[in-house]
């Protein structure tokens, strides 16, 4: 039933492909890096872990150059609308590359790897793979592309989670992650298929135009969207799609936990925003008449649930990693508040919040790793008296936690400020959401402060004087992260502008 394309068509196809490649450089570059790493690993047979890590660092750093060049390219579609290049995507490209870099740095600081695995092998390669996947998630404009990139990220994540092969917790986490991830992505695909059925299109923009053109069967649509949301929700780890998160975060190697909790969450949000802003109709008259089926209300539900659940359950955690895992669920809730506003300001707020979350969460996990290196534990009890033994780490962790609570003068406060401003800019419509956010952040203060409470207000049971100094470079990195957390808390202009820049979504001007 298909007739073969004529030579001319093939010519044009090839032409457009070659044209697209121009705009595809970072991804290509990163893929090359990915393979390079594997080759290096094969050659240097895991003897020189530093070689790998350094290469990764440099490689990722190098990719920034290409991304930077993309800033001056016109926004547009690539590969027949499969893929887009816009400020939104560029913002996230930077974001993911940086988080990749930080993940590598953190990994280098973690002593657990020496004990757990013989060689770093494909570890760094997989991190790069994840970066690629997430970048593509952020820039894909087609359901197929979305699915592919998401799976790329997920698979790398599964493996990285289970990277400590001999560690039961790590493996268990991997299994759970796998099963849960597989199911929810499966559901997502099923949802995609339904949407395809409704519209006959896989491209987001075509979908939205189709939907607004011909309308749709609301029942089927809601089912499809729910299934899709299951997929996205699992990525951003929001209630009720969060169940994997605590276990995986606890079980996985700490750098991976940090990486997942920041980067892959951010990727999920990139997808979420693109999909909900473009594909499915929202706002405006289009959806008013569809029997009150309202994606926003759905998101509101999710975000409220996440804020309450994450914070309340975190109260009971005795393991710092797990505590941070729950807090990251709560933060997904806060981020969703920004999405709910559904306008440029909201997007900007979300992006800024992502940036702040990036800084403070990585920072927190970094300190946790350093402490774990010395004490070999992540339990709250073992944090007692650390404030005296590791003053800088203590101070840094306190700053990060304060930032996570959202107190000035830290970056976290700015994030919350923007989110709430975005909500209140809609008048009293979303005030109650803001109230919930405020309340829950007061709760969060409590469990975050438990850590400084143990570090400073409690004396450590064992008074043996072993050297607790994490070393020069880690100290510097900590100091830098801490400095930025505070600095951007006071002078957040550049980052806010950057977020503003990123909030321009694929040419379409948000109202």
């Amino acid at each position: 039933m298909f007739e073969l394309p004529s030579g001319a068509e093939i010519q044009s196809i090839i032409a457009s492909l070659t044209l697209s490649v121009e705009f595809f450089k970072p991804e290509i570059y990163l893929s090359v890096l990915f393979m390079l790493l594997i080759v290096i690993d094969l050659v240097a047979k895991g003897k020189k872990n530093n070689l790998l890590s350094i290469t990764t660092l440099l490689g990722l750093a190098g990719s920034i150059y290409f991304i930077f060049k993309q800033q001056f390219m016109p926004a547009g579609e690539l590969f027949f609308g499969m893929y887009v290049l816009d400020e939104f995507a560029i913002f996230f490209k930077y974001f993911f590359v940086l988080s990749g870099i930080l993940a590598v740095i953190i990994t280098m600081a973690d002593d657990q790897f020496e004990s757990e695995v013989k060689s770093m092998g494909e570890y760094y390669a997989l991190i790069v793979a994840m970066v690629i996947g997430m970048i593509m998630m952020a820039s894909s404009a087609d359901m197929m592309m979305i699915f592919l990139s998401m799976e790329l990220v997920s698979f790398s994540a599964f493996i990285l989670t289970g990277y400590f092969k001999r560690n039961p917790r790590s493996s268990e986490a991997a299994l759970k992650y796998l099963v849960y991830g597989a199911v929810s992505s499966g559901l997502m695909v099923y949802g995609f298929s339904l949407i395809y059925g409704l519209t006959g299109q896989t491209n987001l923009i075509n979908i939205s135009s189709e939907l607004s053109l011909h309308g749709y069967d609301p029942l089927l649509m809601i089912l499809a969207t729910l299934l899709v949301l299951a997929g996205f929700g699992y990525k951003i780890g929001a209630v009720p799609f969060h169940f994997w998160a605590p276990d995986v975060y606890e079980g996985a190697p700490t750098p991976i936990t940090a990486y997942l909790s920041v980067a892959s969450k951010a990727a999920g949000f990139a997808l979420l925003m693109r999909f909900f802003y473009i594909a499915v109709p929202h706002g405006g008259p289009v959806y008013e008449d569809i029997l009150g089926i309202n994606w926003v209300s759905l998101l509101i539900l999710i975000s409220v649930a996440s804020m309450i659940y994450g914070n309340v359950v975190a109260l009971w955690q005795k393991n710092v990693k797990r505590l941070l895992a729950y807090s990251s669920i709560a933060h997904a809730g806060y981020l969703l508040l920004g999405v709910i506003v559904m306008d440029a300001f909201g997007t900007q707020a979300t992006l800024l919040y992502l940036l702040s979350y990036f800084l403070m969460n990585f920072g927190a996990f970094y300190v946790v790793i350093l402490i774990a290196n010395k004490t070999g534990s992540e339990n709250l009890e073992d944090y007692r008296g650390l404030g005296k033994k590791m003053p800088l780490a203590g101070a840094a962790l306190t700053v990060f936690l304060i930032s996570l609570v959202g107190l000035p003068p830290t970056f976290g406060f700015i994030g919350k400020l923007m989110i709430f401003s975005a909500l209140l800019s809609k008048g009293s419509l979303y005030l109650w959401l803001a109230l919930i956010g405020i309340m829950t952040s007061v709760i969060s203060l409590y469990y975050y402060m438990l850590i400084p409470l143990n570090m400073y207000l409690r004396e450590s049971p064992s008074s043996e004087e072993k050297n607790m100094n994490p070393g020069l470079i880690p100290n510097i990195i900590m100091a830098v992260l801490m400095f930025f957390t505070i600095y951007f808390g006071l002078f957040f202009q550049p980052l806010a502008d950057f977020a503003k820049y990123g909030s321009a979504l694929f040419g379409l001007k948000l109202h």
Partner: protein
Amino acid sequence: MHSLIQLSIVVLLLPLLSFVILIFFNRRLPRRGDFVGVGILGTAFAISAYIFWTVIVQTYDPAFRVAWNFTWIDLGNVPGIGPLTIKMGIVIDNLTAIMLAMVTLISLLVHLYSTGYMAGDKNYGRYFAFLGIFTFSMLGIVLSDNLFSIYIFWELVGLSSYLLIGFFFEKDSAADAQKKAFLANRVGDIGMWLGILILYSQFHTFSFAEIYANLAAGKFAMSNAWLTAAGLLLFMGCVGKSAQFPLHIWLPDAMEGPTPVSALIHAATMVAAGVYFVARIFVLLTPDALHVIAFIGAFTAFMAATIAITQNDIKRVLAYSTVSQLGYMVLGLGVGAYSAALFHLVTHAFFKACLFLGSGAIIHAMHHEQDMRWMGGLRKHMPWTFATFTLATLALAGLPLTSGFMSKDAILAGAIGFANVEGGGVYYIIPVLGFFSAMLTAFYMGRQIWLVFFGESRTHLKPADDHHSAHHAHGAHDAHNDDHHADHGVHEVSWNMRAPLVILAALSVFFVYSPNPLDGAQGWFMKMIKTPATVVASYQSAVGSGHSALKELPSAEAAGEHASEKGEHTFADPRQAELAHTSHAAHYTAIYISSIMVILGITLAGVVFVFKIIDPDKTAETIRPLYLFSLNKWYWDEIYQATFIRGSLLLSKMLYWFDRNIIDGMVNGAALIVRNVAFANNSFDKYVVDGLVNFTAFSVNTTGAVLRKLQTGKVQTYVVMLLAVVFGYFVFYFTRLIY
């Protein structure tokens, strides 16, 4: 600025100077610097004597008045009011001049006396410093031209009395007494303060002159009842300071202080300040207020007299007699015998100071024995004291030829006149009580003189277990011999203690005040101190009748009101004219009755104590309930202890419990329960609980506990829940869609 003002400022500041010098440097100075105190007070007295001379003797003018003030607080241009300032100032009129002289004189004498009495005390220097600050604040009250500064010095007087009562603070009784005195005064001050506030809220000024001007102009916007209330509230200040019922309880305990202090503060000057203050505000007191004042005065006079009969502590007898006499003065003001009351104030100041100093001499000589039952026969040992003491006693009892006689009779005459004007009935209670108290006064003073100076020394009768206290009267009867208190060397006191006695005694003779021993009205005092014109009546006429305050007044009043409406202000309030007239008429009746009463009292005392025709102990037994009632001071202390003090302490405990458990508990969200739960869980859940104070930790915490159970760790349950949610939401919308 008038030269007198300048002088008065000097007088005011001198004692403060002595305070400052002595409080800081007394240890560096020889003799702990007592000469500084005496010297400075001497100067102060000299100056005020000069003021007295110029005002009273040279410018012999009842209406004499100079005033000066300065802006103390400037509140700027207040919205709605305009420029607003709080002024401080000084006013000198006849009354001020007299009070100045009196206060400085007595203070000087007490300083002098104390150099003997307090010699060798370890805080000797500090004592004179305190005397200094007291004199300063007392002079401040006397000189103030506005309510605010009077209130300030009022409290300062309270402070200095607090310090001086508690001078022997190692004694718990002294510490209790000083606290009691301060608090009782505070109660009065609160009333006074409220009164001040009422007036201020109307006129936005504290100055007497301006307030009276506004009142006279009828600018008082609130109802007349408020004016009465203001008057009575201000009077409460007097009730506190002048130890009127119901706040009289502190004065007797105040005798814990050194005796010269009792003489200066708790007999002559400070307690008189209350009366002085009422005199200052006399013009704004409505008739209703005056009635209340009169009754309180009368009752106080009577009650204190009855108590004084049975007291055994020599100072307590005098203390209660002081209360009683103050009652007279207040009564006098209440009935409108303005000048008589002030006259009594002055005379009483001198002879009561004399009595206290005398008792001090006795106590000094008796090695701090204060219980009259163990004294006796002292007239041989200390003739000077005896003579002066007796003279003062006669004055107090109000025998003719003494100053007390004139002043007291003037008051009583006023009382009779008042009763007549008010149309008799209940109002006759006041003069009756007055006369009866006069008799009682004579009686207990007779008793005291006899017990102290006559008969044989009873020192050896003192039981060992009786610790200087008049409370255990029953200890008197089981007297068993031991002479650890044998009266060795009871001797006359030294000159520096004797001189004040003599001077004060001399000042309680009639000719100092009036050529005619029977009529103080002919004396310079009554001529100089005239009843001021009230501003209330004119207020009536200005605002128009129909005010509750006047409705109750008898016809004479109403008539007078019309008169004043026509605007003739010979006596602003015809009621005053009426009073003046009738009381003058009642003058001689008063003399007769009171003389009879006094003589009755003295004879009774003689019958009982001298000739033992009636045995006091037996009578005490026969009328034991009455006796105890009087001996225990009508049980006021016990009543207050049981009600107010216990009550407020209990209340405070309750409130504190409430604070800790209810409020904290409420805000902490049932923290208690949860804390117990939390202890069960682990060590720091406590902080989870209290950490979440502000929105019911309990709920949040338990929801957490429940929700975390969802995290079963079984991946399949996760999937189930995921699908459940999706399906549930789907169904929800499905139903939304169908219906």
